[in-house]
């Protein structure tokens, strides 16, 4: 069989010569490549930023401090864990991995190596970024009502929300077995009847406390309490300052 005038060649060349089959423009490929690369870089940068924000949250909120109570603090730890930040971070890493897998060069190495490399890069740069004040700035902008900053507000909310199992804040007043605690949301009255007097005697107004316990009939019943340096929970401290604008609200003990 001679291939010079094979039917397939004739048919294909007829399609090409008639103009029905045309070359796709080289700019489409260029745009595709640039688009892919841009989305990939943007996703990796976001993943780096979110890893930095996760570290920032753990470092500045009350979350990790609950573990200092041992296993009793686990519930408060899980309650205040930055799920939204972590899920977003994991999602971004997955999206970056997916895009990387679709890239033309990625098949040359096993995907597990590339995924490990990607995770390593994100963790390394995210950790390095955590040493800068980028996350502080983002938190500041988020609560200033800046349109772009507002996007980040939900990610910090977990660090300032009211909790049922833990509590961190400034002592406003003490009366008998009740304490008024200024948290980033409200002034909360807590019941410390389960706490020994020798511990309670070390606590005075304006000090910062960290407590674990449970909500019963609308009252936070403290199981364990300790003093904490406000510098260890700067996110909580800033939250209180923002919420109360430096004012000390009046306290009414219910009992």
């Amino acid at each position, binding site marked *: 069989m001679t*291939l*010079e005038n*094979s*039917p*397939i*060649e004739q*048919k*294909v*060349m007829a*399609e*090409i*010569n008639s103009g029905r*089959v*045309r*070359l*796709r*423009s*080289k700019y*489409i*490929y260029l745009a595709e490549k640039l688009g892919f690369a841009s989305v990939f870089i943007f996703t990796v940068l976001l993943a780096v930023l979110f890893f930095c924000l996760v570290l920032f949250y753990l470092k500045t909120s009350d979350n990790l401090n609950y573990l200092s109570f041992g296993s009793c603090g686990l519930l408060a730890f899980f309650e205040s864990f930055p799920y939204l930040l972590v899920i977003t971070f994991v999602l971004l890493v997955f999206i970056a991995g997916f895009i990387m897998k679709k890239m*033309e060069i990625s*098949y*040359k*190495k*096993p995907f597990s190596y590339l995924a490990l490399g990607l995770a390593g890069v994100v963790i390394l740069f995210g950790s390095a970024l955590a040493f800068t004040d980028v996350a502080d700035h983002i938190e500041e902008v988020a609560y200033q009502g800046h349109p772009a900053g507002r996007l980040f507000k939900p990610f910090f909310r977990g660090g300032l929300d009211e909790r049922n199992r833990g509590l961190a804040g400034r002592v406003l007043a003490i009366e008998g077995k009740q304490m008024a605690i200024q948290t980033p949301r409200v002034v909360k009255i807590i019941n410390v009847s389960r706490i020994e007097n020798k511990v309670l005697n070390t606590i005075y107004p304006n000090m910062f406390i960290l407590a674990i316990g449970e909500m019963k009939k609308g009252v936070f019943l403290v199981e364990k309490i300790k003093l904490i340096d406000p510098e260890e929970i700067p996110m909580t401290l800033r939250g209180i300052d923002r919420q109360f604008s430096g004012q000390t609200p009046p306290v009414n003990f219910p009992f």
Partner: protein
Amino acid sequence: MTKPNLTDEQLVSVIRESDKELYGEIIRRYQEKLSHYLRKFIRNPDELEDVLQEVFIKAYKNLYGFNIDKKFSPWIYRIAHNEAINSIKKLSNQHLSLDEQEWEIVDKKMDILEKVSSKMEREAVEKQLFVLKNKYREPLILYFFEQKTYEEISDILHMPVNTIGTLISRGKKRLRDKLDKKYDIRK
């Protein structure tokens, strides 16, 4: 430089920039090779011709998507491979048959059986080769019957070179096991 002296990559460059008529040369260079490859997936000659034509049309349309610094052969084989897979999905009643040259490869290189001679043995090998999972069958076919290197298969199937080696060796073992179990054809 005359067109027979041009490499595939040089030809593509000229076709893209100035002379689309030269695409006929690409078709002549690859028609037989791709037809041979596609025959491992599609037996019906009409269907095969349609798929082959589609491969050349797709390759032409996407010529700017080819990176001129790489080899052209794995690129066009990848298009053929994708078209073959699409075609297999549409037609489930396909079956594979090998020619005499390929039986020699099975005997000498594939090391599945000592010598595949009887009609029954040949049918058994063909059937088992065809029902082998795609991920094993594709590298086996490309390596043994299309004489591609691991590097080229890696470019065609978009898999790491090490994985290709593993799949070929596992594919051979699976084929041997299947033949042992189902047909009691032993070395």
